[in-house]
C-alpha cells in the first residue's frame, strides 16, 4: 500500500498542521505543544473538560473529535504510539475550565501509564480529574478479563455522550458516571482484510493472504480470533454481530445504536451491504436501531476491514446521543 507523505517521521506533525490550517474554527494547537489539539476558543469556564489522547493514524479518532458537544483537548502521539505524559498534562490544563477534567481514552498500556503519570503531574496544579477507559473490543480478552480489553471504535459513543453531558453543564461526577456507563454499554468486534503501513516502519503491520480475512484483529494489526477465507458479506456481518449479542444480549424491545465503521480502505458501499444484514438480524431479534453511524469514525489509515460497535441505550443515554455536536468530521444538528 502506497502512502502520500513527505518525511515519515513528520507524518503526525504534518497531519496536525494540515488539520489546524484546514479547520481553524475547529482545531488549534495548544500554546505549549504542537502535539496537543484544543478548541480555538480555549477552555470553557464552568464546563467540565474532557480530554483524550492516543496515537496518530486513526482519524477522526482522536484529535478529530475535539469540538462542541464532544471533546476539549487531545494529546497526539506518533502513528500508533502513545503521546507523552507531558503532552497529556498540557491537554488536561488546556481543557480545564475550573470544574475538573475527565480523561477518556482507550485501554492501551502505554496510554494508560502516560495518562496516569499526567494525572499525577496536574494534581499538583490542583486540577481535579477522573479517568474512564474504553475497553470495548470483545475479541481482545474474554469477558472474565474485561479490564484487559482494548478500546476501539466504541469510544466514539463515549466521546459523544460524555461530551453532551459536559455541554449541558453536568458536574465532573455526572460526566464521569455517564462516560463509564457508555463504556460499560458498548461492545465492538472487527474484521481485517488487509494491513496498513506505519510510515516510520515502512512495511505493512501484518501479512495476510489475497483471499483471507482475520476476525477480531486489532486496529494496530494485533492478532485476532480466527483467520480464514474471505467470507460473503452476510456471513461477515454475522461474525461481527454474534459475539456481541452473545455477551450483551439486548432483549426484545430494547434499543441500540450501532456504529458500522470502515477501518479505512473499505468503501461506504460495502458498509451498506453489511448494514442490510445487520438491520435484518436485529429486526428479527426485536431490537430497534437508533441513530446508526455508518462510515469512517475510527480508522487505521489505509487498512481494509470494518468494525461493528453496538451501544445499548436507555432513557438517559439516548437524548445525549441525539444532542447537537460539531467537529470537522461529524455534525449532529
Amino acid at each position, binding site marked *: 500500500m502506497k502512502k502520500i507523505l513527505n518525511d515519515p517521521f513528520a507524518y503526525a506533525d504534518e497531519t496536525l498542521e494540515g488539520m489546524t490550517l484546514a479547520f481553524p474554527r475547529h482545531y488549534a494547537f495548544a500554546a505549549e505543544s504542537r502535539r496537543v489539539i484544543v478548541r480555538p476558543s480555549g477552555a470553557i469556564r464552568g464546563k467540565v473538560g474532557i480530554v483524550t489522547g492516543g496515537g496518530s493514524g486513526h482519524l477522526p479518532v482522536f484529535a478529530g473529535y475535539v469540538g462542541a458537544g464532544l471533546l476539549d483537548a487531545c494529546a497526539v*502521539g506518533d502513528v*500508533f*504510539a*502513545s*503521546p*507523552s*505524559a*507531558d*503532552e497529556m498534562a498540557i491537554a488536561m490544563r488546556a481543557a480545564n475550565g475550573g470544574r475538573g477534567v475527565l480523561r477518556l481514552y482507550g485501554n492501551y*498500556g*502505554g496510554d*494508560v*501509564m*502516560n495518562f*496516569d*503519570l499526567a494525572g499525577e503531574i496536574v494534581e499538583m496544579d490542583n486540577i481535579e480529574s477522573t479517568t474512564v477507559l474504553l475497553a470495548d473490543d470483545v475479541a*481482545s480478552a474474554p469477558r472474565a478479563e474485561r479490564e*484487559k480489553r*482494548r478500546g476501539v471504535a466504541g469510544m466514539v459513543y463515549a466521546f459523544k455522550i460524555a461530551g453532551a453531558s459536559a455541554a449541558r453543564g453536568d458536574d465532573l461526577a455526572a460526566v464521569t458516571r455517564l462516560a463509564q456507563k457508555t463504556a460499560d454499554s458498548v461492545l465492538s468486534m472487527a474484521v481485517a482484510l488487509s494491513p496498513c503501513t*506505519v510510515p*516510520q*516502519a515502512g512495511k505493512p503491520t501484518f501479512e495476510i493472504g489475497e483471499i483471507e480475512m482475520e476476525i477480531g484483529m*486489532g486496529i*494496530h494489526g*494485533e*492478532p485476532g480470533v480466527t483467520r480464514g477465507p474471505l467470507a460473503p458479506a452476510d456471513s461477515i456481518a454475522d461474525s461481527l454481530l454474534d459475539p456481541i449479542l452473545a455477551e450483551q444480549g439486548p432483549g426484545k424491545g430494547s434499543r441500540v445504536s450501532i456504529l458500522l465503521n470502515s477501518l479505512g480502505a473499505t468503501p461506504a458501499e460495502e458498509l451498506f451491504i453489511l448494514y442490510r444484514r445487520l438491520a435484518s438480524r436485529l429486526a428479527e431479534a426485536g431490537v430497534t436501531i437508533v441513530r446508526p453511524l455508518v462510515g469512517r469514525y475510527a480508522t487505521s489509515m489505509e487498512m481494509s476491514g470494518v468494525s461493528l460497535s453496538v451501544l445499548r441505550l436507555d432513557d438517559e443515554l439516548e437524548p445525549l446521543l441525539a444532542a447537537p455536536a460539531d467537529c470537522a468530521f461529524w455534525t449532529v444538528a
Partner: protein
Amino acid sequence: MSLTTRSVQAGIASVHRMLEAGGHETLTELDGKIGDGDLGITLLKAFRKLDEVAPDLPQDLGQALAACAQAIASVSSSSFGTLLTTAVLSAAKELKGQQSVPWERLPALLQGAGAAMAKRGRGNLGDKTVLDPIDAAASAALGLSDAPDILAVMRHATQQTIDRFRDRPNRLGRARIFGDRTIGLDDPGMVAFKLMLDGVSG
C-alpha cells in the same frame, strides 16, 4: 568507591554506545515479533537524549536523576520509556540531597524502582515483563557491596529469568494479545534490561 553523578554519566555513555553499536536492532526485531517493533528506537531516542543532557547533570544525585527522568519522558512515550521514566524518578526521590551513596544501596534502589514500575503499569511478577528480571536481579544482589560483584550477580540472575520465562506466555502489555504465540520467545523488555546491564558492565 561509591555511586555519584559521574557513575550515572559513565553508565549513560556505555549503554548509549552499546545501543548505537547495534543493540537497538536486536530489540526492534524482538519487539517486532510480538509487539509494535519500536522498543529499539524508544531506547535509542532515550539514550541519545540522555547523552545530550549528561554533561550538565548536577552533583545532587536526586536532581541529576530527575533531570534524566525528564529527558527520557520528553522523547519517548512507549511503555518501556514510561516505565524507565518511572524507575528513574523513583530512584531520584530516594536519593534527593545526596551526592554520593555506597554501591550496596543499588539493589534496594532497583527494588524500589521495580515496585514503582509495577504500580505504574498495573503489572505483577510472573507476567513475563521487565519486572521479573528486575526483581530477580535486585533480590540476588541484596547485601553485596562491590560494584563489579553486584553487576555480575544481576546479569546472571537476569539471564536466568529470561531463560526461565522463555517457554511461558506473555501476560501483560502488547505481547499479551499474542497469547501462546509468545511461548518460546524472549520478552523484549527483559532483553532490554539485560542489554542495559551488559552495557553498564563494559
